[in-house]
C-alpha cells in the first residue's frame, strides 16, 4: 500500500517555556479544585488533625502537665501537624493516582500532548497546599484558643518545615498509587498511615511509648519529621537535626525509585 507521509514542518519542535509553565499551573489549579470539591478528601484531611487537637490539646488539657518541656497545647501542634501533613500528602497523591491509573483516566491524559511530569507535579502541589492549610489552622487554633505563645518567626519556620516535610509523603503516596488498585487505595493508605502515625509518636507522645517502640520509631519517617517540627518549639528528643533531614531525604529517594518502577511497569504494560 503506497503511503505518502506528511512530514512535520518543524522537527525540533518544543513548547515555549511560558506555555509549559502555564500547563503546570492549570494542571495544579484543576487538581486543587477537583480535590477541594471532593469532600471525602478535603474535609477529612483537614478536620481529623484539628479534631484531635481540639480534643486532646484544648479540651482535655491539664495545664500543669507539660510534655517534653512545653505545654500540651504547644506540644501537640508539631505532633498533629505531622499527622495532618501525612494525611494530606498520602491521600492527595495515592488515592487519585490509583483511581485515575486503574480506571482509564490517566490513559486519556497520556494520549494528549500533556507533559507527563505536570500530572505528578500537580498531585505533589496539592499535597503541599493542603498540608500548609492544616498546619496554619492548627497554629491559629493553638494561638487563639490554646494560649500557645510562639514568635512569628518560629511559627513561620514550623510551617515551612512541615510543608517541606510533605514531600517525602507525597513521594510515598506516588509509590503506593502505582501499586494499589482503585478500590483498595483508601484502605491500603489507612493501613499504612494510621499505624505509622502511632508508632512514630504522633498520637501518644514518644516518651510514653515502650522502649522497644521508641527504638523502632527511629526507622519511621514521620518520627523524623515530627522531631524537626518539635525542635522549633523546644520540645522533642533533641537529636541532631541533620540526621532527621538525611532520613527524610533518603526515604523520599527510595519512594521516588519505587514510584518510578511503577511508572515503568505501567508504561511497559502499555508500550511493551
Amino acid at each position, binding site marked *: *500500500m*503506497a*503511503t*505518502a*507521509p*506528511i*512530514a*512535520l514542518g*518543524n522537527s525540533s*519542535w518544543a*513548547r515555549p517555556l511560558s*506555555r509549559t509553565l*502555564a*500547563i503546570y499551573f*492549570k*494542571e495544579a489549579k*484543576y487538581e486543587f*479544585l*477537583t*480535590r477541594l*470539591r*471532593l469532600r471525602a478528601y478535603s474535609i477529612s484531611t483537614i478536620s481529623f488533625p484539628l479534631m484531635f487537637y481540639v480534643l486532646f490539646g484544648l479540651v482535655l488539657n491539664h495545664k500543669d502537665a507539660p510534655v517534653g518541656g512545653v505545654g500540651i497545647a504547644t506540644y501537640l501542634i508539631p505532633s498533629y501537624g505531622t499527622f495532618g501533613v501525612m494525611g494530606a500528602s498520602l491521600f492527595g497523591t495515592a488515592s487519585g493516582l490509583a*483511581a*485515575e491509573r486503574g*480506571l*482509564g*483516566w490517566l*490513559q*486519556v491524559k*497520556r*494520549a*494528549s*500532548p*500533556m*507533559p507527563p511530569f505536570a500530572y505528578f507535579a500537580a498531585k505533589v502541589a496539592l499535597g503541599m497546599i493542603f498540608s500548609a492549610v492544616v498546619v496554619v489552622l492548627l497554629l491559629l487554633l493553638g494561638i487563639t484558643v490554646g494560649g500557645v505563645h510562639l514568635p512569628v518567626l518560629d511559627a513561620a519556620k514550623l510551617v515551612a518545615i512541615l510543608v517541606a516535610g510533605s514531600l517525602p509523603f507525597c513521594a510515598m503516596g506516588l509509590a503506593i498509587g502505582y501499586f494499589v488498585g*482503585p478500590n483498595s487505595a483508601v484502605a491500603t493508605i489507612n493501613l499504612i498511615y494510621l499505624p505509622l502515625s502511632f508508632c512514630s509518636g504522633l498520637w501518644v507522645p514518644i516518651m510514653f511509648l515502650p522502649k522497644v517502640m521508641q527504638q523502632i520509631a527511629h526507622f519511621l519517617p514521620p518520627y523524623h519529621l515530627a522531631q524537626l517540627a518539635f525542635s522549633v518549639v523546644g520540645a522533642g528528643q533533641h537529636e541532631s537535626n541533620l540526621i532527621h533531614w538525611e532520613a527524610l531525604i533518603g526515604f523520599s529517594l527510595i519512594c521516588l525509585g519505587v514510584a518510578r518502577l511503577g511508572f515503568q511497569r505501567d508504561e511497559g504494560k*502499555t*508500550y*511493551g
Partner: protein
Amino acid sequence: MITALQEVQEIHTEVQVNGGAVIATLRRVSKNFGEVHALRQVDFSVRAGELVALLGPNGAGKTTAVKLFLGLAKPTTGTVSVFGGDPIHAEVRTRIGAMLQVAKVPETLRVREHIDLFSSYYPNPLPLAETLTLAGLQEIKDREFGELSGGQRQRVLFALALCGNPDILFLDEPTVGLDVESRRVLWEEIRRLVARGKTVLLTTHYLEEADALADRVVVINRGEIIAEGTPAEIKANTAGRRIRCVTSLDIEIVRSLPGVIEVRRDREGLEIRVRSAEPILRELLMRDARLSGIEVTSAGLEEAFLALTSANNGAA
C-alpha cells in the same frame, strides 16, 4: 463467500487514489499480549479527510489498533506512523485527538474546566465557545462531570478529543452504551467534524453506526482485517437482501430459483435471502398471483458482518 474480499480491496485501491494523502498507517503490525494475539500482520491506513470505521466484535483488536495509533502501545512487530512520525512524540500528539473508553473521569470538575485544561495542552486550540458548540455542551458547561447523563459524559469526552483542533481524531467506541437519541446526537457531531475537513477513525461494534457514518468500513475479527470497502460494497458483496412474503408456493420451488441463498418458513410466510431482490420478486409474482404481504429489506451490515465473521471463524 469471502471471495468478495479480493474484489472489495481492488475497488478500494481506486478510492485511495482519489482520496487524500495517507496520514496514519499500521504497517504489518502484530501485537501480542503474552499468548494473546490482539493483532496479526495488520496493514491499515487512514487518508486525510475520510471517516473510517473499524468494525468488529468485542475482542477483535479494535481498541488495540487505536492504542497503537495513539502511541499508548508499541507494536510487537511492524511500524506505526502518524503524520510521518511516531505518535509517542508530543509534537505528533498535538495533531491528534483521542476519545477512549474510560471507567471514571474526575467528577468534581466542571465541563468547561475539563475543556480548558485539555485545550491548554495544544498549541492552537479551538476557542472554548466553539468547542462547546461543536460538542453540544453550551447549556451544561457549568455542570460538574459527575452530574451528567451518560450521553452528556460521552459528549464531554468527545469535546476533549476535538478541543485541541487536531487534524485526526481517534474515537474508540464513541457511542457504546448510549440510547438511540444520544447516539444520533453524537453521530451528527461527528459528521460536522468531518465536514470541517477533519479525519476520523472510529471503532464500533454497532454495524448501524459504521453504515450511517463511514466513508469506508474496515471489518476486523480476531486481530485480522477480513474485509474493507464502502458500507454499500460490503453489503453488496456478502448477504444481499431479504424478502418476506405470504405465498402458496412450495418452499422447495422457491429454494430452486436462481439467486436464492436461503429460504426459511417464517410464521405463515417465507423469508427468502437473495443476492438481488428484483428478479426473484418478478419470478415469485409470476408463479403465484395471490402472493401477498411483500416486504423487502436490505440485509443490513449486521448480516453482512455476521456472514463475514462466521466465514472467517470457520476458516480459522
